[in-house]
């Protein structure tokens, strides 16, 4: 009889666990998170289908959606930091070899900003580049883009855009 209750308890735990969303996912659901694209019916499109990437860190979560339009990499970058509000901004840039150098335009804590971002292709995903930056007319740019360091621990892994 004791075993019966134990099995019942175990089964209940499994059912509850299998039907509940992880905490992070619930948070994400409450915010703006991309669903899937609704394609263009227009003609002569030079836009390639979007690809989506995601990074999960201890303190932040990043979702990147990228398309190539007329040779320009364009997309949306959604950053969710545990300490701050989620911000969503747009990104436009060019592939320089295997590195995407682009301008990320966003608003965080009431301040509008533009900063350069560098994302290096690694396998199917990207890794983010870091380096010294300076402010040029209000825009944060890399002082020396060729000396960027890429953080292999921050992988933007390719994920399906449609979930």
């Amino acid at each position, binding site marked *: 009889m004791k*075993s019966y209750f*134990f099995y019942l308890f*175990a089964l209940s*735990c*499994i059912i509850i*666990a*299998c039907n509940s969303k*992880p905490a*992070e*996912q619930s948070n*994400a*659901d409450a915010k*703006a*998170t*991309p*669903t*899937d*694209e*609704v*394609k*263009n019916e*227009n*003609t*002569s*499109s*030079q*836009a390639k289908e*979007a690809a989506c990437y*995601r990074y*999960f860190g201890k303190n932040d*979560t990043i*979702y990147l*959606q990228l*398309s190539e*339009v*007329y040779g*320009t990499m*364009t*997309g*949306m970058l959604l950053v969710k930091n545990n300490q701050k509000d989620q911000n*969503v*901004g*747009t*990104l*436009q840039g060019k592939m320089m070899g295997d590195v995407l150098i682009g*301008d990320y*335009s966003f*608003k965080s804590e*009431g301040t*509008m*900003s*533009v900063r350069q971002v560098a994302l290096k292709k690694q396998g199917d995903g990207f890794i983010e580049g870091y380096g010294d930056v300076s402010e*040029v*007319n*209000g*825009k944060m740019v890399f002082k020396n883009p060729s000396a960027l360091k890429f953080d292999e621990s921050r992988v933007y*892994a390719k*994920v399906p*855009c449609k*979930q």
Partner: protein
Amino acid sequence: MNRQYLYSLFIFLALLSCSKPASNLTPSGELSDTEKTTISEEVREMFTNYYADIKKNGMTAEFNYLDHSPSFYWLVPGATRPITYAEAEQGVNQQAQLYASIDNKWKSLYVYPLKSDLAFYTGEMESTVTDKSGNSSTYTVVESGIVIKRLDGWKLLNGQTTTIKAEAH
């Protein structure tokens, strides 16, 4: 005791196998396919009306389609920082005095619904502007932006535009 230990291990493994992988974090499923299609159609319709409006009524008609709120910002071609709504208003008013007509057409447009009142779009647009002397130029731009649904329809909330090609006629 051993049996209890095995039960515990079994539960632990079962819970572990049931929990969703981290890579599953994002969406969402909060929008149905029908809702996504509706949002996309509404956003496209907004752009159709927007471009028809500025073609017919001039550049200042653009104000009907920009989100007049502190959340608005846009990174316009050549700028190093985004402009506010007040700056956009000033720029549009200045340009309205220079140009006789403006004709915008999407060559490609992708719309990605985010929430019931928020969507991301990106695409390639061709913009032909004619000044008051009759000289016209065509610009090919790539534009990415976020649109928000207000009580009076979808509005451009923030984004950026990059000029890819400029041709004088």
